[in-house]
């Protein structure tokens, strides 16, 4: 292996982002950045966020995508020191992060939680939105199909059978552990 090739491999940083709903419409988000082998480099999780009644009424169906994508997702991405090369998420709502971020955001449909608010999660996705990454197939943001080239380039640095689904489970477990350990009062807007 040449040193340039090794450097390129070492520069791959994978971001695994998810959010869980701890009580009614109260969300907490987490982002784990790993190297290409899934070894953790940094983890950030947010304090819980709960929308107030006015926000619920006025945001309507865009509320959860806004909280998960723009509020939690963007905050996590801003705060993390080890910047990921791309972000994988198990929440379809977090695809909304893509327009505000300058890196590919991929949604792992297979690991989407059953309580996901977006019922369109299971709907058929256009073929051109799908991209293979490791062992799984992910969905890209429909307005950023040009991400495919970046994603495929990063995928070359990974093992073909790398399980990209598993780290998302780790993040979910870490969020649940955090919530069970720390009694945090949700930040009501």
């Amino acid at each position: 292996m040449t040193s340039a090739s090794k450097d390129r491999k070492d520069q791959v940083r994978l971001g695994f982002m998810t959010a869980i709903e701890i009580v009614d419409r109260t969300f907490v988000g987490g982002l784990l950045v790993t190297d290409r082998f899934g070894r953790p480099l940094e983890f950030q999780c947010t304090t819980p966020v709960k929308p107030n009644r006015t926000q619920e009424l006025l945001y309507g169906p865009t509320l959860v995508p806004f909280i998960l994508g723009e509020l939690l997702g963007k905050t996590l991405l801003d705060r993390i020191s080890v910047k990921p090369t791309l972000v994988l998420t198990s929440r379809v709502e977090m695809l909304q992060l893509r327009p505000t971020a300058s890196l590919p955001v991929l949604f792992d449909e297979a690991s989407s939680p059953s309580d996901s608010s977006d019922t369109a999660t299971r709907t058929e996705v256009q073929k051109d939105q799908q991209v293979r990454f490791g062992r799984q197939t992910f969905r890209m943001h429909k307005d950023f199909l040009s991400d495919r080239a970046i994603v495929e380039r990063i995928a070359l640095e990974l093992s073909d059978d790398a399980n990209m689904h598993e780290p998302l489970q780790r993040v979910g477990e870490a969020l649940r552990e955090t919530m069970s350990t720390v009694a945090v009062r949700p930040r009501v807007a």
Partner: protein
Amino acid sequence: MLSAQNHRNLPERDASFDVPCPRAFDFPFETSTVELLPTVDIFSSGSNVALNRWLGIECQKIEAGLVVGTVPSWKPGWPKVHTVGLAFPEAIEFQPAPTERDGEQLKTLRARKKKPDGESDDSQVATKSTRLRPPSDALSLEDRLFYILQPPLETMLAGQDLIMPFEPFPHQYEGIGWLFSQKSALLADEMGLGKTMQMITAVRLLLRGGQIRRILLVCPKPLIPNWQREFRAWAEELPVVTVEGDTARRNLIWKMPGVPILITNYEVMVRDMEAMPEDERPKFDLVVLDEAQRIKNRDSKTAVVTRDLNRKRSWCLTGTPIENRPEELVSLFEFLEVVPPRATPDLRQLSRLADVYILRRTKDVAMKDMPPRLDRDAYLELSPAQQYAYTVAEKEGVVQLNEMGDQVSVQHVFELVLRLKQITNFDPLTNESSKLDRLVADMEEIAQSGGKAILFSQWTKVLDWLGARLQQFNPLIYHGGVPTKKREPILAEFKADPTRHILLMSYGTGAVGLNLQFAGYVFLFDRWWNPAVEDQAINRAHRIGQTSTVIVTRFICKDTIEERIDAILTQKRAIFESILGAGDESNVTLSLNASEIFGLFDLKARHGKGTKKIAPAKAEDAKQDAA
């Protein structure tokens, strides 16, 4: 239009009327007609006169503002979201393993795992996942998250940046994960389940994860080559340095920076640490004691010096955490720093500590598909010459002991036992030996089938004696008298040379740490005092990697001291479970205690063989009986 058609009291005139446009309004205002059809019942109340009056309309000017506003106003503001972060230590970079250096494709564990028909067993790999669990003493959230966020062991190891020569077994994955997360750990797997590999892999992961940077492994001297070999096999990229040579060289090695793993033996470690000023002693992130029963006596110099080692983590490896008394565990726990110095926990407390800090699996549970071990006790008659020598020695010995009266001690009895045991091996005058005859018979069969056997004896002299008489099987001898440097080649030759059918070993040197799973037969030529040591010896062959049934033959001469020792040892074989489990047998020991050694002859007396009691308390009775 106002209408009063239905109003009975209004004058009969057109009740509608025009409402003039008030002049105050500046904008065009059309005249509108308003219907007034009040339905009012008139009662004779005397006040109805008001109804006869015309309605008065008063117009007022109202300012209608020209700017439209929304009240209240709302801006979509959200509170600042806070985050909690956890950074992981950077991994240490080691030289790449050879396959990577050579530019070859990294081997993966998945590729190695084949179904019988040659296809990869993907489904099994996909479903198997050993997650690290936070240790019970990890209280802070950061500590717990550290473990939760680690990838499964299979992911860490499977053909990524850590090459493994073999796919670990499930119990080994579990052991690696457990060690990884424990600061204090006693891995007490039964011999042959791969403690060495589990320890090396856990160390490798901790080093890779930046959790530890400097490790000291202390083991018995004969096992150093074994550890060096195992490190080469399981973690070739890790630089390992053995602390050896003269004092100056050893001092240099102790203080050498950048060496992640140091290996030394107990004697060197004790000597060097004692000679070193306290503030100059090296510091370690992890100290591992192999065959940790070496520190079972908490007051021994080895135990004291070992406890003083500067370290952050402490691990012990042993297949026999309790050789004699449950209290031996306390010394190990003291090293692990899970009990205070000089603590005396009772059995219940020991049992609770064992649940947390000891991981012990037995082959029955962990390796269900491992070839079985068949134990067969060969009860042999002494040859005539042996029988004569034995009878004479026993009679003379017992008489001698009885004559000593109250002066008799365990040591005296012990000497007699040893003498008798030696005669059961062979008669020193005639060299007759029923054990040898049986051994030769068995070995002929084994050699014919191309098999290999290991033989254990307590005495090196017996091994040399056997070596001279087993030449047809091309024997090799391995005991404490063989120089250390020559030991490894002996083992290698035994493995590689198909004409070498038997390896003669002493319990003391050959019973621990060696991997001889290519041998399918084990002979215990004479019995050791402790069944745990015998098990260790047997497990040199009956261990992971063994492909065939291991046949263990114990030679026991009938109506001799061996039979009586065997009876006691058999009763004690279940001791590990009782101590590591409920633990209510505080006085039980694995080795023979003083009263049991005295009782060896008492047993024979009860069988009517004429030997009398020799215990000090009843010495007078014994004298009378002997007379």
